[in-house]
């Protein structure tokens, strides 16, 4: 055990902070590269220089109705940006939930938020066409509303029992089973066509994106993530237990309630457009924690970047694995994420949770 001279502690701490910031910069660069690769992939047969030229032209203000323009701006670019934002947002949600609930298994998926969204979407799919509503809008709205309802349900249950991490996790799991059962119930009576649509929705996919949806998600992220970042120290304290947090001047229950609400708005805002993409919110925070530690000031943005990279890679793979076929990205995220997670899990020997 080497002895460290006292004044080197501060230097060490500052160095470790510097390293984490540098790591974030590197990840941002890598994400940019991935986005560039992603936007050049597709069945239209555009070469990377053609794609680059189209984007540069548009950035210079030259609007055109060319084929390239239609493909890059009409189809690909919003999908790619949406994917990155969705990955970012879901990963941040997972990181915050794992912190405030002190549970390594917490994620939007494991706490029933996603199954509530699936139920909302299922209702819309089955009954939406019948009443002649604009089905897609109905699915999105319903998924969003049910997601918030589920969180509100968790909140109410937890409020009665005291908003401890344990009651919230338990309430979340109950909500998950409840909505899964209700979805199955609907599916049992639904037509084969509807069922297929529901199943496809639960795969999670980026095929339904548009610029408007991308703007909506970007707006949600810009409105919420700065707040979560600002509460980083509070979440750090909460992750050690309520008593410790209270002793350090954190209003534990209120902070957990607020963060939970915000996380559910982010999740709802993303998965109502994509369907359930469950895996990223669970695994991106773990990968990040193994790499840079648990300080929320760094964990929130780094998890976001890792999540964005995972979802973008999964999207690249989902569009290039089988020619002329797009596999739903929700299926691919696990294939991309698990080997990476497994590698780190075996390699990083120190306790990280």
């Amino acid at each position, binding site marked *: 055990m080497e002895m460290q001279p006292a004044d080197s502690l501060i230097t060490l701490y500052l160095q470790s902070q510097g390293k984490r910031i540098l790591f974030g910069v590197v990840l941002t660069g890598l994400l940019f590269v991935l986005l560039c690769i992603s936007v050049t992939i597709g069945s239209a047969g555009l070469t990377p220089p053609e794609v680059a030229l189209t984007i540069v032209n548009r950035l210079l203000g030259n609007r055109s109705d060319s084929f390239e323009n239609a493909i890059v701006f009409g189809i690909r670019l919003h999908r790619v940006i949406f994917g990155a934002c969705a990955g970012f947002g879901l990963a941040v949600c997972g990181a915050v939930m794992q912190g405030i609930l002190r549970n390594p298994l917490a994620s939007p998926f494991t706490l029933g938020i996603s199954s509530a969204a699936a139920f909302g979407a299922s209702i819309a799919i089955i009954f939406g066409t019948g009443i002649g509503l604009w089905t897609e809008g109905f699915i999105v709205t319903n998924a969003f509303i049910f997601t918030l309802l589920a969180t509100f349900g968790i909140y109410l249950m937890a409020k009665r029992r005291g908003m401890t991490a344990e009651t919230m996790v338990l309430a979340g799991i109950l909500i998950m089973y409840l909505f899964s059962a209700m979805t199955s119930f609907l599916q049992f009576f639904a037509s084969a066509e509807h069922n297929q649509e529901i199943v496809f929705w639960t795969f999670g996919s980026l095929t339904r994106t548009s610029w408007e949806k991308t703007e909506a998600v970007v707006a949600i992220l810009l409105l919420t993530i700065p707040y979560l970042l600002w509460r980083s120290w509070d979440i750090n304290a909460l992750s050690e237990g309520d008593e410790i947090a209270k*002793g350090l001047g954190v209003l534990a229950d209120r902070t957990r309630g607020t963060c939970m609400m915000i996380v559910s708005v982010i999740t709802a805002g993303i998965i109502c457009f994509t369907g359930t993409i469950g895996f990223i919110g669970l695994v991106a925070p773990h990968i990040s924690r193994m790499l840079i530690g*648990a300080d929320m000031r760094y964990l929130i943005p780094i998890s976001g970047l890792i999540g964005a990279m995972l979802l973008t890679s999964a999207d690249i793979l989902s569009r290039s694995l089988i020619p002329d076929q797009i596999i739903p990205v929700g299926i691919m995220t696990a294939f991309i994420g698990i080997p990476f997670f497994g590698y780190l899990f075996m390699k990083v020997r120190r306790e990280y*949770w």
Partner: protein
Amino acid sequence: MVILSAEKVAYTYHQTPIIQDISFEVRPGEFIGLCGKNGSGKTTLLKCLGHILKPEGKVSIDGKNLNEIEARSRARIIGYVPQSIQGRISKTVFEAVLMGRKPYITWGVSSHDLQIVQEIISRFGLLPFASRDVFEISGGERQKALIARAIAQDPSILLLDEPTANLDLYHQLEVMEIISSIIREQGIAAVMAVHDLTLAMRYCSRVLIIHNHRIIGDGLPSEILTPDHIKTVYQVDAHMSTDGGIPHIVPIRASRGF
């Protein structure tokens, strides 16, 4: 001058009274030992004093009602050290002690904060462990890190819940010496829940005994930790002796039988 005063403090959990009618005052420089058997409400009282729980009655700090002090300001006055950390999320000892500066930090950490953390780590003899994970070090070192964190809050009063539980003999003495010297040097006060009556006798300047939810004894350790009181509270016959100027309490037998 009074740092902390408790007036008719009571706490009831699901209709069961845990503590009742607790009144006392704490002055700077005092090191108060809180004795009583398991489940007597020592921890509950500490939590009420630290506003972790909200009791009936009134707790004041520097003459101001604790309910009216904002959470962040409260954390700059009261340093609460629980028995253990609940979560399992890892961090280095340095980061753990730095957390004590939370009541002063909004987002960025100032060099003043880092300086304080460094001095405290050095004082607690935690330098060799500073970069290690809090869950990789021994229970004794972790306990010291928790106390170091509370000191980093720069409080006027420390609330300690069994700081020497699970510690070996060396660490028990070390932790008690550090706490005593900080109380002396910085003129702060401490209230400590404690089971080890010999340690209380040796280090505390005053002892409170809680029995049947109430304080039944309050005074100098030598006046309060008497065989009579020990028999009433713990149902144990005890013998007091002094070896080389160090008082100690030897339990002889359980007077109630097992």
